[in-house]
């Protein structure tokens, strides 16, 4: 009975075009943001802030980026980590070489650089599709990492190619504690999620989906193939780039090119698939799932072996964790190929009818 749009009539298209047409949703989201911005920083301990929530938000942002490309525009990419790397290292350079610029503009410019790289490596998508394109994006993955290690300027000529993120100071306010870093990350992610939502529900988003669903028809009704595909790559890479910058500045603090391996790209693709292809919410759900699952498993096993007090060597435990992680993903894909977002939808449908059967 609680979750109902019954009795909420839309008298104007404006109302109907709100992000959350249903009142309960608006309330829920408002509450969620309130909790995320105020309650969490106050209550959560350092471990949760710096080891779980912050990375979760950053991965969610990257997932969002990849989702725009793969989920909405239908272009499969395995180069996500590379775009993140561009973001991280360029942000470092902007802060280093143009300190007057300020951190946030530096992040944005870093994102723009990532977008540029994205456009270059998006060009093949005009010719090739599917796994051929996916494997082609691997070229980006490997080339970018190689370039970062070769071009001394990018790492400010540090022998090992490792960079250390500078202090984050915005208008004289220093973001140094885990709580502050978390809040900064949250703010950026929230804003960018909103922008993404807007974009995806307006013309650009429709063009993306049109290209995804049937490119011939799309061009017949006048959607420019090239512009749309490249724009998708650009926007997606921009998001990944900013995520990369946050990865370096609010999460790890020090990054080496190896931090952005193909493994990371796959992880983020997982988040997209598990969360739900073509869903903003799904990006967050997927990120939460993939970030938390391994930690949850290891904590769980830790507790079990502690409780049982038996002497199983950790090699066994770790491998079991890995196996279960993989198995769960397979299992999940089998039971709900459309991802968590779909489950959430179904739950909502049920909730609408509840407590009456229909």
């Amino acid at each position: 009975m609680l979750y109902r749009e019954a009795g909420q009539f839309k008298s104007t298209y404006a109302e109907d075009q709100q992000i959350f047409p249903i009142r309960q949703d608006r309330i829920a989201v408002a509450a969620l943001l309130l909790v995320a911005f105020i309650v969490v920083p106050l209550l959560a301990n350092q471990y949760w802030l710096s080891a779980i929530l912050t990375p979760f938000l950053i991965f969610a942002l990257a997932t969002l980026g990849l989702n725009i490309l793969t989920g909405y525009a239908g272009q499969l990419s395995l180069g996500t980590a590379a775009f993140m790397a561009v973001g991280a290292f360029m942000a470092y350079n902007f802060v280093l070489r143009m300190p007057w610029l300020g951190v946030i503009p530096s992040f944005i410019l870093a994102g723009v650089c990532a977008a540029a790289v994205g456009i270059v490596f998006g060009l093949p998508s005009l010719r090739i599709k599917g796994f051929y394109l996916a494997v082609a994006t691997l070229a980006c993955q490997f080339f970018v990492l190689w370039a970062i290690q070769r071009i001394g300027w990018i790492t400010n000529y540090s022998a090992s190619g490792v960079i250390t993120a500078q202090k984050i100071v915005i208008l004289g306010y220093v973001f140094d504690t885990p709580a502050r870093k978390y809040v900064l990350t949250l703010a950026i992610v929230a804003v960018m999620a909103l922008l993404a939502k807007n974009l995806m529900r307006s013309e650009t988003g429709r063009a993306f989906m049109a290209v995804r669903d049937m490119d011939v028809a799309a061009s017949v009704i006048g959607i420019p193939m090239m512009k749309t595909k490249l724009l998708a790559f650009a926007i997606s890479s921009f998001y990944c780039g900013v995520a990369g910058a946050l990865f370096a500045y609010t999460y790890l603090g020090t990054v080496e090119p190896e931090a952005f391996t193909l493994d990371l790209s796959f992880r983020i693709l997982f988040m997209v698939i598990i969360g739900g292809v073509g869903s903003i919410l799904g990006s967050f759900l997927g990120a939460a799932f993939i970030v938390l699952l391994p930690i949850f498993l290891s904590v769980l096993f830790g507790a079990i072996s502690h409780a049982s007090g038996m002497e199983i060597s950790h090699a066994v435990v770790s491998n079991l964790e890995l196996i279960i992680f993989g198995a769960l993903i397979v299992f999940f894909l089998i039971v709900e190929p459309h991802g968590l977002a779909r489950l959430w939808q179904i739950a909502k449908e049920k909730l609408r009818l509840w407590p009456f059967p229909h």
Partner: protein
Amino acid sequence: MKHSTLALAIVASAGFSAGALAQAKEQFVPHSYYWVGPFAASGSGIAGGAIDYLNMLNERDGGVNGVKFTGEKCETEYNNARGVECYERTKKHPPTGATLVHPLSTGITYSLIEKGTADKIPIVSVGYGRTDAADGRIFPYIFPLITNYWSQNTAKIKFIGMREGGMDKLKGKKIVNLYHDSAYGKETLPVLEAQAKMYGFALTNIAVPNPGNEQQAQWLQIRQIQPDWVILRGWGVMNPTAIKAAQRAGYPRDKILGVWWSGSEEDVIPAGDAAKGYIAAAFNVSGTNYPVIQDIMKHLYAKGKGEMDDKSRIGSAYYNRGVVFSIITSEAVRKAQTRFGKGQSMTGEQVRWGLENLTIDDAYLKKLGATGFMQPLKVSCLDHEGGGAVKFQQWDGKQWKVITDWIASDQKLVRPMIEASAAQYAKEKGITPRDCSKEN
């Protein structure tokens, strides 16, 4: 999205509070190593040695002055993010939080430099990590102990000099540096360049892309250059692949000089007979015929305890390296107790003092049952390295044979580079160096 997060939060916190039953007279040491993935061999071996030694102390002498070591294992997957998570999870563990941390990954070490400093938890990277952190004035909580990549490298050139019959003979010699194309691999490029100038040998750096399981091209280049020596700065599969490729290219293995991350049994066994004669550096030797290892066998494995499933790995280079890690851990705690109270649980801050004033001379090594097993150590506020020497061992097809005594590094060359690099870091981060004369 928070629903799922919070839901898990409860379970998770329940999870580790179970492992966190606070008791007095305990010294908590996190065991964040890696048991899975491409490098599992090194991770599991080192973890085994490290954990076994502390448990042996608990069994043999009831810990350090009655303070028993407790630990919590955490899988890092050799991955920065996971490593940071492990650190955050274990750092506040009762009674006194993490004693110190062995990140066992240069990447993770980098990620922990600021966190450790802020949390007052020493980050100890033995034979890896950030070289210039050896300048304790700028990195009070970071301890790249015993020796670092730059020191090792000077020792290596010395060794080559010895083999060639004098450093002056290096002039005009051709040396190839075959390195893993990563932060780790590139760490030694500057010092090599400097030495090439110093001794006038011709240096060629050849990169091997990660993971390094394909080196045809690189060895064809080497074959073309016909170098007098090849320095193998490898990691994981790159090592056996290099040795096999060398054989295929007809390059003599006893002219290949590996670093200590290329000098374990795991690096040569996969290469089979091709590895005969291959030489590698080491800051700890292999073998079980040291009292310290014998004690572990006696007090743990004889009683059916012990971390290793595969007993044959006890005494391997990696296992023994783990033992060295834990000797440092326990001795730092012991030292700290002499100042902050015998039989007490030490905090990270106190252990930091312990590390900084740690001295392990030959007599003490003998007491530890580790004579010749590791080198004497003298750490100070100024010098967080404290040793710097390496031995060289040669693979005879069955096992590693030590072929030199400890060869000291060329601190005259290395130290200024360290200080310069550290100063650079201090400038970037706006750190004012400690005045070591004021430390006690």
